[in-house]
């Protein structure tokens, strides 16, 4: 089969016209072709068409304060922010007793400062960044969780918590405490302390608050944190197991990982909720809140394992062989040589998994856990506040909340990616 070869020269194209200035920019960026040009125009038209309505709905015509839904039911009014304002405590803490809210605040404050310290990359830090970190993060979480209303209600207590948070952040930063120790505090000491604070204990003089009163944003954060914290070590073990030379270990790891990844999270939750109590002896049945958390952690571990495995595979075999030649045992090799490299490689991927896990916490509502989204849905049906604008308003509020967290995490992951690549960019 003779292949065709072009013998005569193709006609020469004219040189590209490069117009500078505003017209050139417009030509490059808006009227740039037969497909993207009209598309860009259509997008601009859409923005011009929608933006005034959005601004009117969410800001100009919005109802900011009201005692009940009557004001929001008036024809032509915009978003019903008054509803969000009134229900904010319920969104944040669920049914947790009002007088005990400070306990939740303390736990969140400690967790934020500790985890922020852990996630804050070492190395050169600008003064501005340092201050932003030391004051900005506690302040942000503070406004996000207890909010200005709590400061007005109990100024001394809430401000003390804020001051404590900033002091702790400073102490962690300036004492040059090794990250390992901070990690130990976060993973070992903090959960115990947090559990006692939240549940209450007669030893600390705190009244018992049953888990069925827990709810709202705080519960979403709690479920996410436990899942994430547990998934990391479990995921590493599973990933190592999957690459193990021992066939039984490998088999069980693969079985577990593929099984969990093959089924929807909802069915895992159903299983945790209805089947877990059947699998354990009669009076071992875990708490109603613990079941979905256990399910969530087991679910998270399988996804984490696959991410970590990606990192393990990227480490050249020579590393392992070199370590072996030095006489290191399996666990020494993993702990000292392989895992530090592999985990650093996959930090962005791990953060992405955190993001998707955080979003997945919304599904625990299906087994009756009062997470943030479910608190919103429960508040939405309050007849006092029912009105046509309530749902869009409160969903927008929820979307903004999740977006701030997830987008923040994804930006963090991008930053880490750049920092990590900096070492490899020669």
């Amino acid at each position, binding site marked *: 089969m003779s292949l065709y070869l072009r013998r005569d020269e193709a006609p020469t194209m004219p040189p590209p016209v490069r117009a500078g200035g505003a017209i050139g920019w417009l030509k490059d960026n808006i009227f740039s072709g037969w497909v993207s040009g009209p598309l860009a125009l259509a997008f601009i038209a859409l923005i011009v068409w929608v933006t005034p309505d959005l601004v009117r709905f969410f800001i100009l015509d919005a109802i900011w304060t009201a005692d009940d839904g009557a004001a929001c039911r008036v024809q032509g009014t915009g978003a019903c922010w008054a509803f969000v304002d009134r229900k904010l405590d319920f969104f944040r803490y669920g049914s947790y007793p009002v007088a005990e809210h400070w306990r939740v605040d303390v736990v969140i404050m400690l967790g934020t400062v500790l985890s922020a310290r852990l996630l804050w990359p070492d190395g050169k830090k600008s003064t501005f960044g340092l201050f932003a970190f030391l004051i900005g993060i506690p302040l942000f979480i503070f406004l996000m969780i207890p909010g200005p209303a709590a400061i007005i209600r109990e100024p001394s207590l809430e401000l003390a918590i804020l001051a404590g948070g900033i002091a702790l952040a400073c102490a962690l930063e300036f004492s040059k405490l090794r990250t390992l120790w901070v990690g130990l505090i976060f993973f070992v000491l903090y959960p115990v302390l947090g559990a006692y604070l939240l549940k209450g204990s007669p030893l600390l003089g705190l009244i018992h608050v049953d888990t069925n009163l827990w709810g709202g944003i705080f519960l979403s954060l709690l479920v996410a944190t436990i899942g994430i914290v547990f998934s990391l070590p479990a995921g590493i073990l599973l990933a190592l197991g999957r690459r193990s030379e021992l066939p039984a270990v490998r088999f069980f790891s693969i*079985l577990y990982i*593929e099984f969990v990844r093959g089924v929807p999270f909802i069915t895992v939750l159903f299983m945790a909720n*209805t089947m877990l109590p059947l699998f354990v002896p*009669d009076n071992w049945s875990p708490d109603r809140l613990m079941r979905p958390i256990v399910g969530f952690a087991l679910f998270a571990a399988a996804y984490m394992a696959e991410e970590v495995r990606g990192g393990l595979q990227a480490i050249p075999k020579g590393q392992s062989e070199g370590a072996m030649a030095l006489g290191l045992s399996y666990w020494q090799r993993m702990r000292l040589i392989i895992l530090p490299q592999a985990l650093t490689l996959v930090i962005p991927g791990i953060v992405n998994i955190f993001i998707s896990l955080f979003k997945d916490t919304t599904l625990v509502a299906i087994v009756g856990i009062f997470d943030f989204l479910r608190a919103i*849905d429960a508040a939405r049906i309050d007849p006092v506040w029912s009105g*046509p604008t309530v749902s869009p308003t409160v969903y927008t509020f929820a979307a903004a909340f999740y977006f701030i967290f997830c987008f923040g995490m994804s930006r963090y992951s991008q930053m880490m990616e750049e920092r990590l690549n900096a070492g490899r960019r020669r």
Partner: protein
Amino acid sequence: MKAIAATFLAAMTLGAMSQSAAAQAGSKTLDLIKQKGALTCGTNTGLAGFGLPDDKGNWTGLDVDLCKGIAAAIFNDPTKVKYIPLSAKDRFTALQSGEIDVLARNGTWTQSREAELGLLWVGVNYYDGQGFMVRKKLNIASALELNGASVCVQQGTTTELNMSDFFRTKGMKYEAVAFADINEAVKAYDSGRCDAYTTDASGLYGSRLKLVNPDEHVVLPEIISKEPLGPAVRQGDDQWFNLVKWTHYAMINAEELGVTKANVDDMLKSPNPEIKRLLGVEGDFGKGLGLSKDWAYRIVKHVGNYGEVFSRNVGEGSALKIKRGLNSLWSAGGIQYAPPVR
């Protein structure tokens, strides 16, 4: 992975069928409750009049008051109750698994639920029947005019099955729109997704309050089923079964004898022997239930009699304004009837 799934299924089935010695579940529920210091009560996720938490987690309702009555009888303190809101989906498993001590969640008493699910209904604290709610502007006077309608319903309930029977026997077509959560179903009806909403008539009144404009909706007169609602317990602990049953009966007897929350202390001096026995002035009728002698006094003192509870939660004294009807005492034309304390 297919092999994995197959193994898993096989393991489940084998395990489920294997004949190992059965441990007796749930013995001495009362001792466990005393040990825990609180009664664990399964409730509705939020049905006005029957079981509804406010923003602060305080529960109210007809079913909730029964739980409070039990707690009052055991601890002399109606607040020693832990409420666990349950969806229709996992209410029975929660009771079966021993997670809750009593299920007071407007559950319908049926034969299969007792025979197959291993539960026992202690009585009927609300005689109900399934009805339909529609918009007034549809100008419908009877459920028989619902041919072709879309009907919102909570899935996994007897309601869903009754509705199917009703439309089938009447030869009418309809669209069932099923939701896992009762509030989702009500919300969908309210937004116009369905022409009608169906559940127990009592629930219809409660749900109507949650609509944007309650006055625009009307409950149709037809009652298409018998729905005896009442609290349920696990099988296998007769003493506990009796305790819950007699808490319910004590409240009815108190109403019959005219003992109310307000006058219960005066009634202690009543010469009427029936009142004397009920309130523990004469004889010790609590012993057999594992309770103190003044068990019924405690119930009435803290919670009130059946009539008061009814009126407060669903009747004239509440926003629901449901008439007593079938739920009147037998002496007043209803069918609420309690065996005597003696």
